[in-house]
């Protein structure tokens, strides 16, 4: 039987106006870093240079924090809450207006399929601002007391997997609650944050309320350790999250940490198998598996395991890997050389420890960073690929016999960010949801996000929540907790 191939349907780059270089966004203006250093940001799908961005060091961080402090004391904290909210509404609207441009820049800088940046990242980022805009003048109803107060200046550090969306998760609630921010985007994906700085200018946001400093881990550490920061909000690895927790242990700084995960996606034998297979694919291959809550540990009830794996392989053969700018692409480029190396390194331990690797036949582009969709079967709980976060399109498959065993295996992790449940029995779903030690449970669905829905992990997956009323609380001073 002959099959029809998809013709390529590339999105145009024309809408993306990427400057050849960017400074740091401090005090409402783009300024050159004090030491004049910069670094390149490239398109991971073809390794072409996109732009040069400023490298912020300690001196620049100090300027940015001073600018944020001054904006906090002189302007932002004095503004009526209603007006504060209006700025956020403006930002949300401008993001919607410029959504296509943002989607294209995001895909060029990150390597994710344009379909995902267009349909998920950018609309959700705009929605986040719209949602939080409405909170600004309703904080006394947020469940943290009658006179909620902002914390002050917040240092925010975000990862490269959802660059603009993570920025929105951080900046929207911080501003709505009345804080000012210094945000450091990830080293490999600074562009949409710099574009966002322009949005702040267009919205007329008072100078210094949002400051964006580009750089690397050293820049981030300088931000964390700056003495005039009141709170750190970080999304990234558990390792760095713990380092942040240590560096603020003797300070008054509070923190929210959204860290790693190794989510169990549990398929019970009464699940609708075809739906579950779609959910498994979405769970691990969405955004190249660069998702902290990715369903990277598939736990299948033993009696349906063969059927699920067979259907999964068949479905994986249909995944289109390639040009992220092609609207038909399912799996884009790995974000960086470094990340690709890490995926290889951890996945290779799967082979070495005796698990069985399988990938569909697929042609990978010769330039850029690529990894095929991959599953390992015959994985046991002690294997590194069942314990460590790979952060790539690699799925570890384990089996279980009884529901209790499934839950026990699911909870056997230092992480507790998310989990999936596939079953047609309501009582069983609610039972499993209760047993699972994870902050977000997706039942008969996976990888769903919404500004109104709190997100965050149990155990070593972090501190606090982002999104919803619960996330907002993380940006308001508590009247019962004593910060030393």
């Amino acid at each position, binding site marked *: 039987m002959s099959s029809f191939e998809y013709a390529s349907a590339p999105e145009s780059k024309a809408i993306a106006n990427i400057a050849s270089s960017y400074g740091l966004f401090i005090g409402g203006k783009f300024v050159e870093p004090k030491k004049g250093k910069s670094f390149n940001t490239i398109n991971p799908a073809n390794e072409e240079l996109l732009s040069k961005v400023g490298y912020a060091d300690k001196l620049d961080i100090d300027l940015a924090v001073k600018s944020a402090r001054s904006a906090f004391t002189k302007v932002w904290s004095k503004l009526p809450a209603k007006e504060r909210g209006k700025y956020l509404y403006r930002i949300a609207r401008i993001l919607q207006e410029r959504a296509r441009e943002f989607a294209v820049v995001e895909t060029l800088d990150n390597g994710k399929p344009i379909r995902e940046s267009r349909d998920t990242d950018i609309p959700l980022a705009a929605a986040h601002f719209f949602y939080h805009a409405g909170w600004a003048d309703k904080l006394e109803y947020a469940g943290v007391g009658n006179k909620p107060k902002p914390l002050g200046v917040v240092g925010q550090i975000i990862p490269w997997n959802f660059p603009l969306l993570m920025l929105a998760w951080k900046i929207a609630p911080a501003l709505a609650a009345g804080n000012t921010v210094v945000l450091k985007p990830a080293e490999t994906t600074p562009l949409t944050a710099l574009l966002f700085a322009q949005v702040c200018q267009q919205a007329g946001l008072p100078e210094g309320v949002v400051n964006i400093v580009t750089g690397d881990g050293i820049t981030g550490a300088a931000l964390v350790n700056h003495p005039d920061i009141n709170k750190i909000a970080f999304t990234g690895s558990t390792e760095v999250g*713990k380092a942040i927790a240590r560096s603020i242990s003797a300070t008054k700084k509070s923190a929210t940490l959204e860290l790693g995960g190794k989510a169990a996606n549990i398929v019970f034998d009464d699940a609708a198998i075809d739906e579950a297979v779609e959910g498994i694919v979405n769970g691990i291959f969405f955004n190249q598996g660069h998702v902290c809550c990715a369903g990277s540990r598939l736990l299948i009830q033993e009696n349906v395991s063969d059927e699920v794996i067979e259907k999964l392989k068949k479905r994986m053969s249909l995944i289109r890997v390639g040009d992220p700018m092609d609207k038909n692409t399912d799996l884009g480029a790995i974000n960086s050389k470094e990340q690709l190396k890490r995926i290889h390194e951890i996945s290779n331990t799967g082979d070495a420890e005796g698990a069985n690797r399988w990938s569909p036949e697929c042609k990978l582009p010769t330039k850029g960073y690529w990894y095929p969709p991959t599953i390992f079967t015959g994985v046991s709980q002690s294997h590194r690929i069942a314990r460590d976060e790979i952060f790539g399109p690699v799925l570890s498959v384990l089996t279980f016999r009884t529901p209790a065993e499934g839950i026990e295996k699911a909870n056997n992790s230092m992480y507790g960010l998310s989990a999936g449940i596939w079953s047609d029995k309501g009582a069983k779903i609610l039972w499993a949801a209760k047993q699972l030690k994870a*902050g977000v449970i997706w*039942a*008969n*669905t996976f990888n769903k996000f919404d500004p109104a*829905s709190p997100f965050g992990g149990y155990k070593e997956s972090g501190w606090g929540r982002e999104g*919803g009323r619960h996330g907002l609380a993380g940006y308001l001073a508590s009247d*019962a907790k004593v910060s030393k």
Partner: protein
Amino acid sequence: MSRLDINKTYKLFIAGAFPRSESGRVYEIKGAYKKFIANPAMASRKDLRDAVVAAKAAQSGWANATAFNRGQILYRIAEIMQGRSEQFVDEICALEGVSNKAAKTQVDEAIDTWVWYSGWCDKLSSVTGSLNPVSGPFYNFTTPEPLGVVAVFAESKPSLLGAVRTLAPVLAGGNTAVLIASESYPLPVITLSEALATSDLPAGVVNILTGKTAELAPWVGSHMEIDGVDVAGLSKKQEEELKLVGADNLKRVFRFTPSNHPERILGFMEQKTVWHPIGL
């Protein structure tokens, strides 16, 4: 000759039993007028570990008890304490050197604190959970769940109330606890364990250690099966040190203002969000 009193041996409270410290150590407690009162146990690292094992074992039973049931048990603690209130008053007077009236006020307040937190058990989810209006055909709700095992360093004074107002919220949220009594004022807390033991509280839900705070704090900080810590009874310095080592498993470490507040419960709870599609 007048009758000689039968003095109490003050021991630890672990897994519902009253053992001595495995280390065989005790230390001397003197009262307000430098008068010898008792030799409570000086708990060791091993005693702490035993207490955590007991707390861990009791965790799922307590967490999965109905909120109504937990509320009744917390109320029962208040009932039992009321019956023993004279004993608590005498102990506080001897230890803290306060007036009988002041001691009575403290005991009353401690009892009322149990009643206040008892009432929270079955209201917590409705007050602090949420049904989230997400943009799509999904049912999405958030509910608080207990963290697991929480260690509590009780405030030294007021000796009884300081312990109760740190312990009660931890239990109300469904956590199990290891309470480290104040080093200098531990006795009313040990007597509290006798009330707990007769309040239908399942064994292991609360475990109480006495001993040297400076010795136990670092072990609490580095214990990987302790999920949260209330550092009310620690110095700033000890708190910092505990937070530093506690980062190894991202312990939730808090100090609260000395008042009753639902945040004392919520600080040691996680919020769980569940999504399910809606459709035919």
